[in-house]
């Protein structure tokens, strides 16, 4: 498809939309975003941030927004359910499914609802989440999302509210050659806290384009887990745009398992003194999968901390990418940031690209980064084999251990570690049965 032809279906989809009771300010922003997307078009490999990404699966066919709501049952989401009682939002093909969700009896001061419901009942909440930055930044997919999104989830906590249960959000993609444009919002007031687990899964060759806008107020804490477990025929583009206030804490873990083409981005700004973030994750790839982790961390205030640790495993002909940028502005003295990327190649034809980038404009800072690429430790393999463990099992054990080592970073939440560990084990088992 030509550059114009490939964006045309999305322009048409927007034209076919009605304002449908949305406030004018939002509608204007959507129009601006659509215009911006039309100007930008799809990214190309000439752009540094997209150099390693093969977008052809997204360009060969069009993915207009999904319309029909597919049926889903509790069985369909069982695999991704988090143990114990949770507040739960389930979406299928980009639309909220009340029957599978559980958002009753929230404590006072907590708002958790679908984005569509929030737009109807409390649209102002979306104001900070659909900004001009969507339309002016060189991020066409965020702009497209701003124009087309209809649903997603919104969590807003008043100051001091601490949720007693984990929030889980499960999105299932079902409609082939259709896209789900999800706009998710998490706004934590000062000194509030929450744990959110987003899981993306489905069946078929669909496209999920999710944008999460996250604000963590002064002294608040968010633990944010994302499980990207899309169908291996599907495309997943997801980005989190995070803003941290004074002494805010943000800790994320991205476990990326699925997708033919998957890209998990985090753009995070440490905007208040003493804020801290921990960005962790593991990407497991096989077959023809391509998986990217991209983080852009902006130290805009003094005394902030960043801990980044990402691991990837690539088998067969898979391709892993890690792009990690940390910028330290002149005023961000006493910044303490480190970044580590470790990658395991299981086959000769697998590949990984890592690109760390530090831009430090302050002088009193502590910053470091490192990246390794290697294969399984032969001596460890032999040790396991010498005890009777088969080669296949020994490899499985070592890969599991490799991933477990970064999951360990979620130090104080054994349930969460176990949850992620189960999905890693499931991924490994799926490989054995090929």
């Amino acid at each position, binding site marked *: 498809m030509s550059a114009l032809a490939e964006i045309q279906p999305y322009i048409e989809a927007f034209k076919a939309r009605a304002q449908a009771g949305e406030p004018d300010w939002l509608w204007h922003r959507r129009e601006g975003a659509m215009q911006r997307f039309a100007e930008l078009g799809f990214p190309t490999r000439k752009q540094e941030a997209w150099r390693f990404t093969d977008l052809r699966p997204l360009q060969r066919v069009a993915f207009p927004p999904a319309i029909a709501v597919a049926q889903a049952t509790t069985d369909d989401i069982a695999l991704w359910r988090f143990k114990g009682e949770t507040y739960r939002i389930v979406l299928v093909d980009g639309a909220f499914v009340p029957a599978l969700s559980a958002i009753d009896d929230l404590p006072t001061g907590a708002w958790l609802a679908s984005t569509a419901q929030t737009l109807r009942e409390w649209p102002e909440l979306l104001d900070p989440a659909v900004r001009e930055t969507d339309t002016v930044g060189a991020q066409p997919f965020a702009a497209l999302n701003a124009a087309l999104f209809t649903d997603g989830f919104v969590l807003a906590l008043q100051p001091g509210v601490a949720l007693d249960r984990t929030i889980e959000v499960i999105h299932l993609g079902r409609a082939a050659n259709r896209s789900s444009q999800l706009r998710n919002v998490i706004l934590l007031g000062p000194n509030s806290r929450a744990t959110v687990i987003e899981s993306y899964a489905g069946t078929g060759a669909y496209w999920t384009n999710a944008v999460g806008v996250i604000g963590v107020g002064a002294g608040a804490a968010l633990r944010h887990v994302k499980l990207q477990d899309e169908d291996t025929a599907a495309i997943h583009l997801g980005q989190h745009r995070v803003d941290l206030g004074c002494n805010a804490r943000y800790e994320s873990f991205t476990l990326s398992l699925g997708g033919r083409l998957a890209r998990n981005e985090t753009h995070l700004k440490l905007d208040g003194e003493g804020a801290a973030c921990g960005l962790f994750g593991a990407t497991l790839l096989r077959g023809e999968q391509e998986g990217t982790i991209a983080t852009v961390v902006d130290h805009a205030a003094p005394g902030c901390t960043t801990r980044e640790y990402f691991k990837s495993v690539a088998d067969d002909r898979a391709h892993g990418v890690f792009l990690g940028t940390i910028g330290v502005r002149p005023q961000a003295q006493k910044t303490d940031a480190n970044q580590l990327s470790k990658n395991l190649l299981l086959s000769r034809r697998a590949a990984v690209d890592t690109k760390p980038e530090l831009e430090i404009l302050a002088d009193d800072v502590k910053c470091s980064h490192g990246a390794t690429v290697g294969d399984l430790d032969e001596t460890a393999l032999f040790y396991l*084999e010498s005890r009777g463990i088969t*080669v296949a099992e020994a490899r499985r054990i070592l890969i599991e*251990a490799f991933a477990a080592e970064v999951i360990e970073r979620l130090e104080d939440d054994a349930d969460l570690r176990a949850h992620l560990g189960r999905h890693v084990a499931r991924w490994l088992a799926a490989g054995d049965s090929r």
Partner: protein
Amino acid sequence: MLEINNLHARINDGREILKGVDLAVKAGEVHAIMGPNGSGKSTLAGVLSGKPGYEVTEGQVLYCGRDLLAMAADERARDGVFLAFQYPVEIPGVNNMYFLRAALNAARKQRGESAMDAGQFLKAVRAKLKLLEIGEDLLQRGVNVGFSGGEKKRNEIFQMAMLEPRLAILDETDSGLDIDALQTVARGINALRGPERAIVMITHYQRLLDHVVPDRVHVLSGGRIVKSGGKELALELEQTGYGAYGDAA
């Protein structure tokens, strides 16, 4: 049980390290292989256990009548061959207990037995831990991770006690142990002696042999067994050193 005939093996750089080893070990026997550093003791242990990086150029090894060298390393282990490593490997992220259970169940599966349940397993583990004076907390760590030298060696013998091999090859299990640990390890080895089992102890020193008395002692030098004898040979070596048997090369 083990019959080594004219075994020649070389390492990756092409150097021949084993230059015609002959050795026969019967069930129920304990043999000691002694020799100077670099004489090829670990190479022999490596070749017998299927460690990659060696090429056998000549000779044959029979284990219970089967061609041992034709078997993969994991297959040998499931069939009852055990190597206690001179340098046990640290494997971060793999829980010791999990590892042990995987190993045990691999052998059971081979024998057509069902996997051990957690209760049975724990009971067996506790008994052997006590024998080797290993703290239970060690099992919750990664395999050999953060273990002292002595703990690593005891862990090897502990694994051997759990796996109950038919043929155990112990490569310098005594080195780096203080006298208490040496006695503990020796107790572990002696507990495993039996009519159905053969043990080959590789050692540089005589002192382990005070505690685990061998039936036969062999001197490996320059890639060959140059002398064999009874337990008194070890004492003799202690007096005279390896000088009489030439250099490792």
